C-alpha cells in the first residue's frame, strides 16, 4: 500500500483502538466498586451540592435527584466514565513518558469530569425551567460535542505535558 501520510498511519489509531477495548474489558470484568457505584454517587452528590448553591429545590436519595417536576437518576453513562476511557486510550497510545501519562490522566479525567458536571447542570436547568429541552440536551447535544472536547483536552495535554509543544514552538 502506498503510504501518503505519516510513517505509520495506522499505528496510533490501532493502539488507541486496542487499548480502548482492553480497558473496557478489564473494567467490565474487574472494576472495583469505587469506580462504578462510587463514581455514580460522587457525581450525584456534587451535582446536588452545586444545585443547592444555586438555590434550586432538589433533594437527593442515593443516585436519584428529585426536582419539583421530575426525577433525575444518575447511571454510569451519566458520569462521563466512557469519555474518560476514550481519553485514557488516547493518552496511553501516545508515545510519551510514564510521568506525563500519569499527569495526562489526572488532567484529562478531571477536565472531563468538570465538563460533564457542566452538562449535568445544564440538564438540571432544563429539568427545572425548560422541560422540553431536557431530551434534546440529554440525547443529542452531549453526543455531538463531547468527542471534540476530549480531542481538545488531549491536544492541551500533548502540548503542555509531553514536551511536544516546546519542539513545535521551536520549529514554527
Amino acid at each position: 500500500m502506498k503510504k501518503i501520510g505519516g510513517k505509520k498511519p495506522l499505528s496510533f489509531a490501532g493502539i488507541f483502538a486496542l487499548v480502548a477495548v482492553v480497558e473496557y474489558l478489564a473494567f467490565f470484568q474487574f472494576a472495583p466498586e469505587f469506580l462504578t457505584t462510587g463514581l455514580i454517587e460522587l457525581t450525584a452528590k456534587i451535582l446536588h451540592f452545586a444545585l443547592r448553591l444555586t438555590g434550586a429545590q432538589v433533594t437527593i436519595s442515593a443516585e436519584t435527584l428529585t426536582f419539583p417536576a421530575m426525577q433525575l437518576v444518575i447511571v454510569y453513562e451519566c458520569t462521563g466514565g466512557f469519555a474518560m476511557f476514550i481519553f485514557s486510550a488516547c493518552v496511553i497510545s501516545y508515545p510519551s513518558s510514564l510521568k506525563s501519562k500519569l499527569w495526562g490522566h489526572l488532567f484529562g479525567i478531571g477536565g472531563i469530569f468538570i465538563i460533564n458536571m457542566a452538562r449535568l447542570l445544564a440538564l438540571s436547568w432544563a429539568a427545572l425551567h425548560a422541560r422540553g429541552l431536557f431530551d434534546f440536551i440529554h440525547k443529542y447535544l452531549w453526543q455531538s460535542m463531547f468527542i471534540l472536547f476530549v480531542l481538545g483536552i488531549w491536544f492541551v495535554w500533548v502540548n503542555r505535558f509531553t514536551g511536544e509543544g516546546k519542539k513545535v514552538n521551536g520549529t514554527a
Partner: protein
Amino acid sequence: MAPRNKFILTGILLALVIFPVWRFLLQEPYLTFVGWIVAAFGNILPYGKAGLSGMVEAGSGEIAFDLFDFRRTVVVDVSSIVTNIVPMLALVLATPVEWKKRVIGALLALGIAFLSHIFATATILWWQAQADTGVIEGLKIFTDGILIAALPLLYWFVWADSTSKGGINGLLKMKINRKG
C-alpha cells in the same frame, strides 16, 4: 491562533451548524432506512423475522420493530447513537486539507458511520429482544458506550494521518506516533 486550537474551534462551530440539519431534516428518513435494513437482518440474527412498526412518534429518535417470532414490538432508542455522524463530519470538514480530500473523507465517514449504526441497532435490538444480561449486554454497553462514541475520533486519527504528506503532525503542528 495555533492550528490545533483553530481546528477544534472550527470543529465545534461546524458541529453546531451540522447538528440542526441532521436532527431536523435528515435523521427521520435515515432512521427509517436503518430500521428497514436491521429488520431484514432478522433472517440471520437471533431476534428473528422483524418488520418496522409505526408505533413511535415522528422525530422521537426511536425505531419500533415488530418481532414476529417473539410476538411483540420492541422500541429501540437510537437517537444518541446516530448522532455521532455530527462530530465525525465536523472533525473531517474542519481538518485543514484540500476541500476535495475533505469531501471524500466525509463521504467515507458517512459510509462507516452507517455500518456502525446498523451494527449498533441490531445489537441493541438483539439485547432487548432476549433481555440478555450476559455477553450480549456487554456487547451492547461496549457498542453504545465506547465504539459509537470513539468512532469519530478513531476514524479521524486514521483519515487525517493518512490523507496528507505530513500526517496529523503536519496538519496540527504536533507529533503523532513517529516512534511507534
